[in-house]
């Protein structure tokens, strides 16, 4: 069983982000890290392959400047190899362009049974790549999985909903997006960290994947600061304030 995990290497959220002159996030400054939301997919993939008893976990990542530090983190956890697409032509790529690249990379990986991705990245938040990759590959797309099981050529997931979960199944190969907290990502050992250095890393360009006339597909016109938080509602408690709180929480679907 071969599982591809889509991992994004993002600027460290602990370091304040900067924008380039064309309104894109600066990605050539500090070292990139593995998007935490992708570490769940990596852990899930490792567990599935382990359970299957054979196969490997392959990472696919698109990042500028041949960035590998985030990939090394995932390789240290136990992934077998990685495909890195690094190409100036892809700077500022929109979700569909990204999906085209990832779908091609999945084909390049070869013999893939399952693609795992996070529901959305922690820097872009588009949340559309997993479904687009599935469509481009012509594979079923299952989303928001909080539990994944593989048996008899089928993948069965528990799909997170507002009230609980739905059980959804599809035939393999398939693309599944997993929610944060689906599993506890393992901490790598020093041995794993050392081994990550020598694991195969296949660095390619868009052209290597057969995508010759590809462009970002979007441009960012302007960027505004997030609106400041509004003052909250003050409720004078006349003995019934709890009802207002309960209603408010219900509106938020928290309870």
């Amino acid at each position, binding site marked *: 069983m071969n599982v591809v995990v889509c991992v994004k290497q993002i600027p460290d959220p602990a370091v304040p982000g900067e924008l380039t002159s064309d309104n894109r996030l600066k990605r050539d400054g500090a070292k990139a890290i593995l998007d935490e939301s992708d570490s769940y997919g990596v852990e899930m993939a490792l567990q599935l392959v382990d359970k299957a008893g054979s196969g490997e976990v392959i990472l696919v990542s698109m990042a500028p400047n041949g960035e590998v530090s985030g990939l*090394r*983190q995932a390789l*240290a956890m136990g992934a077998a190899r990685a495909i890195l697409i690094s190409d100036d032509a892809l700077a500022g790529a929109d979700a569909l362009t990204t999906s085209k690249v990832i779908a091609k990379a999945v084909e390049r990986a070869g013999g893939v049974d399952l693609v795992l991705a996070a529901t959305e990245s922690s820097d872009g938040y588009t949340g559309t790549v997993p479904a687009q990759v599935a469509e481009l590959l012509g594979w079923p797309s299952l989303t928001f999985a909080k539990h994944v099981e593989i048996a008899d050529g089928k993948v069965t997931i528990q799909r997170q909903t507002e009230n609980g979960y739905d059980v959804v199944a599809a035939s393999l190969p398939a693309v599944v997006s997993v929610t944060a907290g689906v599993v506890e990502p*393992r*901490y*790598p*050992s*020093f*041995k794993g*960290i*050392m081994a990550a*250095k020598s694991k195969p890393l296949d660095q390619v360009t868009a052209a290597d994947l057969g995508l010759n006339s590809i462009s970002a597909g979007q441009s960012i016109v302007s960027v505004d600061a997030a609106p400041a938080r509004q003052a909250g509602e003050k409720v004078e408690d006349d003995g019934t304030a709890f009802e207002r709180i309960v209603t408010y929480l219900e509106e938020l679907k928290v309870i």
Partner: protein
Amino acid sequence: MNFAFSEEQDQLRDVVRRFVEEKSSEEEVRRLMDTEVGYDPNVWAQMANELGLQSLHIPEEFGGQGFSFVELAIVFEEQGRRLLCSPYFATVALATNAILNAGTTDEKAALLPGIASGETIATLAFTEPNGRWDADGITMVAREDGGGWVLDGTKMFVIDGNNADLIVVAARTAGTSGEAGISFFTVAGDAQGLTRTALATMDQTRKQSKLEFAGVKATPLGAAGQGWSALSKTLDQAAVCLSNEMAGGAQFVLDMSVEYAKVRVQFGRPIGSFQAIKHKCADMLLEVESAKSAAYYSAWAAGEDNEELPVVASLSKAYCSDAYFHATAENIQIHGGIGFTWEHPAHLYFKRAKSSEILLGDATYHRELLAQRIGI
């Protein structure tokens, strides 16, 4: 000689830092302080199974990963930052090193894989009620009895003595004194005739025990009567580990002080703008940086296992003891009233610094040892 950490070593630091930040929050430290065992078995298992911390410097042939004291030092430094409550120091810095230094190949093969896998918690029972850290402090007599060895007497201040499955004991044969006649033995934690009593300690983040041996059957470890050089080396290596742990704690309280000095406003300006506070922070920085340099150098010497180790182990233990204690004391002063409260973490570091200062011999003892070792 390269004094910079490698990229992989920096990654190890990141991983361990992330781990201890998650598993050893102040809240968790306080919870474990109040428990009898003083550590979380799940965290211990994760340290062994995922991060492989217990096996880090155990050779591969004995179930370990075969890395050196430099990697170990990184782990201790990061644990020291967050006061991780765990039998790691007792197991890895004390017992594992004692077995590696004293044991025969067969003994290592029998004892080390259990430690490497996290199954065995171990410690070294060395100090006695006399509180001495030198060879003369060992008065416990081991006697031969019907082809085996039997131990009688009391060991004090044994780190994690109540948690240990395996206790490495230093004792001497009757009629010997000083460095001659010292031998190592191993005893199971639940051995017959062994009474273990938890001691009330000022630093509740590291548990200590009194172990009373009444005719306890013991298994020899290494050559009989030849144990002192292995023990002396073990204590030097443990001092290296402890120095790095202290350096990590010292850096953490310095950061805490600087952060507070920037946000705490008094007389209309942050207290960090007052000379009295600036000077304290500058002195702390000087000492913390020097402590880290000494600790890293000692880790390198331990990793190389060269002739410098005894000298730099004592040097770094002496310097780091003073620097850590001073930093934690100043941290309380800089925090003012809140720093004196039970609710603030400052006292946790202060107490850890005090207990670490005395553990393995205080700064005065190690400066004397240093003088002897460099021949003055």
